């Protein structure tokens, strides 16, 4: 069943470090005070302008297989095709931080406030990624409440365009999920609007199903490097 999810703005406000890191500033760099001031201002704008919304829908294996396979452009073998058949539960999702931030970024570039514009863009991208963690946590909590998962269960999000899953599968995903009611639409190029949106599948199961060696051909080009066990909760 498709349902809207409650995403709190404070749960997706990125850290200052994450915003700077996304712009190539290393952890140990000495930060110019003007840069710091501008980055803090961007985070303030983010907290004013972000309007997070999301939808999620449970999906059975056969239906997800159709979405995953899309029009047959996935790279095979790939990790996701080995992970999802082992899932105890699958759900597809789409979420956005809304159009206001995207408009604000453009306006700041137009105005010539380039550093602030780029900080805000980095904050928006990081915040959008954080939505998937919120959804992972919410789904896990729901499943635990329903007795369908326990603390050892891992829920991780995977998106078209990554890990060999071709972006063209967005079409099938959108046909199934219909996220237009929260303002997310898909272009012919499979680009989502608003730009700062995220979609994909939440795969639930034992943590070890998500573990894979990042040695696929596409891993060499991957810039996120946040796959598999790096995303799993650290065991205590």
């Amino acid at each position, binding site marked *: 069943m498709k349902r809207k999810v409650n995403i709190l703005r404070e749960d997706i406000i990125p850290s200052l470090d994450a915003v700077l890191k996304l712009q190539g500033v290393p952890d140990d760099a000495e930060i110019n005070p*003007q840069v710091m001031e501008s980055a803090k201002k961007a985070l303030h704008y983010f907290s004013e302008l972000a309007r997070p919304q999301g939808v999620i829908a449970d999906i059975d294996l056969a239906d997800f297989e159709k979405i995953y396979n899309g029009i047959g452009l996935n790279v095979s073998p790939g990790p996701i095709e080995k992970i999802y058949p082992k899932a105890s539960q699958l759900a597809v999702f789409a979420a956005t931080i809304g159009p206001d931030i995207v408009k604000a970024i453009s306006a700041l570039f137009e105005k010539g406030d380039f550093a602030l514009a780029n900080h805000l863009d980095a904050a928006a991208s990081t915040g959008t990624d954080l939505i998937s963690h919120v959804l992972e946590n919410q789904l896990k909590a729901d499943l635990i409440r329903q007795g369908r998962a326990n603390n050892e269960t891992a829920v991780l999000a995977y998106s078209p365009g990554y890990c060999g899953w071709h972006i063209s599968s967005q079409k099938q995903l959108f046909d199934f999920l219909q996220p237009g009611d929260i303002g997310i639409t898909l272009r012919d190029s499979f680009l989502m609007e608003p730009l700062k949106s995220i979609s994909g599948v939440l795969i639930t199961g034992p943590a070890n199903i998500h573990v894979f060696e990042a040695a696929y051909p596409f891993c060499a080009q991957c810039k996120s490097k946040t796959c598999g066990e790096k995303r799993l909760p650290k065991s205590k």
Partner: protein
Amino acid sequence: MELLDQISQSLQKGDDDKTAELTRQAIDQKIPVQQILDDGLIAGMTVIGMKFKVHEIFLPDVLLAARAMYAGMDLIKPLMIKESVATRGKVVLGTVHGDLHDIGKNLVAIMLKGSGFDVIDLGSDVSPEKFVDTAEAEQARVIGLSALLTTTMPVMKQVVDMIADRGLSDKIKVVIGGAPVNEKYASEIGADGYGFDGVKAVECVDQLMKRA
């Protein structure tokens, strides 16, 4: 000249108000516009570019400096037009059809303008015809193409092919950039260059200008 050096220094510090004030002083002192541009503003941005290249400073610092550069440029631009001061060449820039990601393209535009090039920014979701028609009409020597999606990358080849079909390959060079593309892809589609980041894009455009 001390004043021009001060312009360069204030730009490097990202101080837009000071850069504008010093540029105004230079104009009042009748220092030739070309000299203010070359030995003040562009000199400052060149240092910024070199420091960025060796990771002494980072993108946010470059963008603060660029804002200062623009503050000075706004003052000398009317004089450049009046005195017909030549730019380093004209570049048509845009994100290809189907793609709305424009941050990378914006950063390249900022760096190119900051380095003295004349940039015609067509925005995002730009058709191959629009790129080539504009470059022809404006007599631009370089087209810069940006894409963030693997699904929109093929539009880059359409632009390269259209330039060839119109017999313009000697006059118009193409440089590409964006997350999914690389040097190898540029070579595969027949593009003339690849800009990994804003600084590399400027270097690449500079070389292509000399060849076009």
